[in-house]
């Protein structure tokens, strides 16, 4: 096996596993160098199956390369590098180790040529990400990680049953484009969508991600949902149902983020919103839309990582503050964190000259090309809404708003370096989209920078900004959360279990009561006949006894005599 055929994902997983057992200096070196080696090896993988392993009756394509695989693996490796740099001062070594296992398995999924390999890496991802949440070591993060794990194990089961049914149908384990038409393909689609944060199981994401540590959330934002986007692009391109699911996710993310007070939950809802754009693109199908979905996943990982690094720096330097009601005015003492946060916010809002502009507009262009008027109107409104809920709301409430009196400094050098690196990428990709367009799955001649496109986008965004400040009194933050689908398993489920438990307790009590009353009446009856005063317990004198015996004998003799 040549080095180019060694699975890059497994390399990163192995690197993560050795991290806890090496000295801090060596650890830092591995964290910074290994992702770059992985990135290099990703680009050594040519098209087609590079590594095949026999398993049962099947031939597993553990490493299979093409443009789409390399694109996602590349951004996963970049994220592992920047996230590792950002997390260098994270004291919980287990978090970095888990994050590398998590990132490595995401790369593993990106190169998986068959469904069984997809499933194996899928499950390692679920475990790795749970460990990342766990590493925050708070009671809240433990509970949230268990809820997270339950949902992802459910998704894993759906995926596994789907794969088994599909293989039974077709006899092939190959992972290629499908349409949801059979039991197996529907279940696989459901399993994929759970990881994407699709309805009705959307709430696991804003529930769990913000509970991770300052650096843990940065890793979490990148891999699970974007791996789901990857498998959907490969597995279900053009499946119409994805348009409806995507549009729901887009507006769900906006509405819930508008109501949210916790800065990192705002950004978590915004992940669902952004993944919604990608899912919609996959549902539209066609080269332009799929390119748009893939490019948007690439740019999204970078600017969402940047936004969460910015929020994580605030969390880290203020000793755990992440609610808008506690924050404000931090631009004065954290200028770099503020500027990087704003660059991330502009990128997520698709401002011209940022990465979001050159990726998201391809999805809207596809809707326009295919004359999907209603969808196009939804996407335009949603683009404005992104600026509203993430582009302005996040920086405004964290860095401006009122003066909270807090004066935290910018974070340590490694966290600043990671933010500067990602802020640079956000602008570089926006200014010069060529290199990204060159590695998209389909060749494209899309030109984002036309005068009308730039002007129209600025009109849309700045008037969205105006609406924010006009409605500012309505945006005032309160110490509240908004109920979500997770209410059904966190409250209704709990009540149902309590109700059932109470039912069972009552039934047990009734049965015991009936049994004991039966037993008592039996004892009472027996007592009446066999007790000290019972007929069977009376003592009789000798005389009457002899008389009875004589009578019995006489009767016996008479009977015997007559009988003979």
């Amino acid at each position, binding site marked *: 096996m040549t080095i180019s055929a060694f699975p890059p994902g497994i390399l990163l997983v192995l690197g993560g596993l050795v991290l806890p057992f090496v000295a801090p200096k060596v650890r830092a070196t591995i964290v910074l160098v290994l992702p770059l080696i992985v990135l290099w090896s990703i680009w050594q993988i040519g098209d087609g199956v590079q590594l095949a392993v026999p398993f049962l009756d099947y031939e597993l394509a553990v490493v299979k390369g093409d443009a789409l695989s390399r694109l996602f693996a590349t951004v996963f490796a970049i994220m592992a590098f920047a996230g590792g740099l950002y997390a260098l001062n994270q004291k919980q070594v287990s978090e970095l180790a888990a994050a590398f296992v998590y990132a490595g398995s995401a790369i593993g999924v990106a190169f998986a040529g068959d469904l069984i390999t997809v499933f194996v890496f899928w499950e390692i991802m679920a475990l790795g990400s749970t460990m990342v949440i766990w590493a925050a070591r708070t009671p809240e993060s433990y509970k949230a990680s268990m809820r997270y794990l339950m949902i992802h194990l459910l998704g894993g089961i759906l995926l596994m049953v789907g794969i088994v049914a599909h293989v039974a149908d077709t006899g092939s384990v190959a992972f290629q484009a499908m349409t949801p038409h059979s039991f197996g393909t529907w279940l696989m689609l459901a399993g994929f969508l759970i990881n994407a944060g699709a309805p009705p199981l959307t709430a696991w994401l804003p529930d769990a991600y913000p509970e991770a540590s300052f650096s843990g959330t940065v890793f979490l934002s990148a891999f699970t949902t974007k791996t789901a986007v990857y498998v959907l692009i490969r597995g279900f391109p053009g499946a119409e149902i994805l348009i409806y699911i995507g549009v729901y996710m887009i*507006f769900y993310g*906006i*509405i*819930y983020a*508008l*109501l949210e*007070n*916790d800065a990192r939950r705002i950004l978590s809802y915004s992940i669902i919103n952004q993944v919604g754009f990608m899912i919609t693109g996959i549902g539209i199908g066609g080269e332009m839309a799929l390119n748009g979905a893939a490019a948007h996943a690439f740019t999204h990982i970078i600017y969402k990582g940047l936004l969460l690094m910015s929020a994580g720096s605030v969390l880290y330097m203020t000793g755990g503050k992440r609610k808008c009601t506690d924050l404000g*005015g931090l*631009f*004065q003492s954290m200028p770099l964190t503020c500027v990087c946060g704003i660059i991330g916010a502009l990128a997520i809002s698709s401002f011209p000259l940022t990465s979001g502009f050159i990726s998201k507009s391809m999805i809207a262009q596809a809707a*326009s*090309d295919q*004359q999907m*008027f209603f969808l*196009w109107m939804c996407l*335009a*409104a949603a683009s*404005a*809404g992104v600026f*509203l809920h993430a582009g302005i709301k996040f920086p405004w409430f964290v860095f*401006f708003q009122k*003066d909270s*009196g807090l004066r935290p400094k910018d974070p340590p050098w490694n966290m600043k370096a990671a933010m500067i690196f990602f802020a640079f990428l956000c602008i570089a990709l926006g200014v010069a989209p060529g290199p990204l367009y060159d590695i998209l799955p389909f060749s494209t001649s899309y030109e984002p920078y036309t*005068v*009308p*496109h730039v*002007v*129209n*986008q*600025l*009109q*849309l*965004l*700045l*008037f*969205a*900004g*105006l*609406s*924010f400040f*006009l*409605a500012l009194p*309505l*945006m005032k933050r*309160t*110490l*509240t*959360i*908004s*109920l*979500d689908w997770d209410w059904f398993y*966190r*409250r209704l489920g709990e009540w149902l279990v309590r109700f059932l438990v109470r039912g069972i307790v009552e039934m047990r009590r009734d049965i015991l009561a009936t049994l004991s009353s039966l037993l008592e009446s039996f004892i009472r009856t027996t007592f009446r006949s066999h007790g000290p005063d019972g007929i069977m317990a009376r003592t009789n004198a000798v005389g009457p006894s002899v008389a009875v015996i004589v009578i019995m004998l006489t009767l016996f003799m008479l009977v015997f005599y007559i009988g003979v």
Partner: protein
Amino acid sequence: MNEQTELNWLVRPTTIKLLWRVGFGMLALLVLADFIIHPHAAFGIDGSFGFYSWYGLLTCLAMIFFSKFLALFLKRKDTYYDD
């Protein structure tokens, strides 16, 4: 806390007034830019005068009001799930 005299230049009332003026100036210029640009409208309405401006403003206000409406039913204290 900063004293009134040491207010950061960005949050001084004069700066904020200036920012509002510059902001409205930019919005006006952007609307007027529709006279100059000639978009290739795919649907018709997207090529009409000021479309992106009013559409961005109104849809955002609609989303804010809709979220406040939903909040009537869905809002709870943030200790709701704490036992």
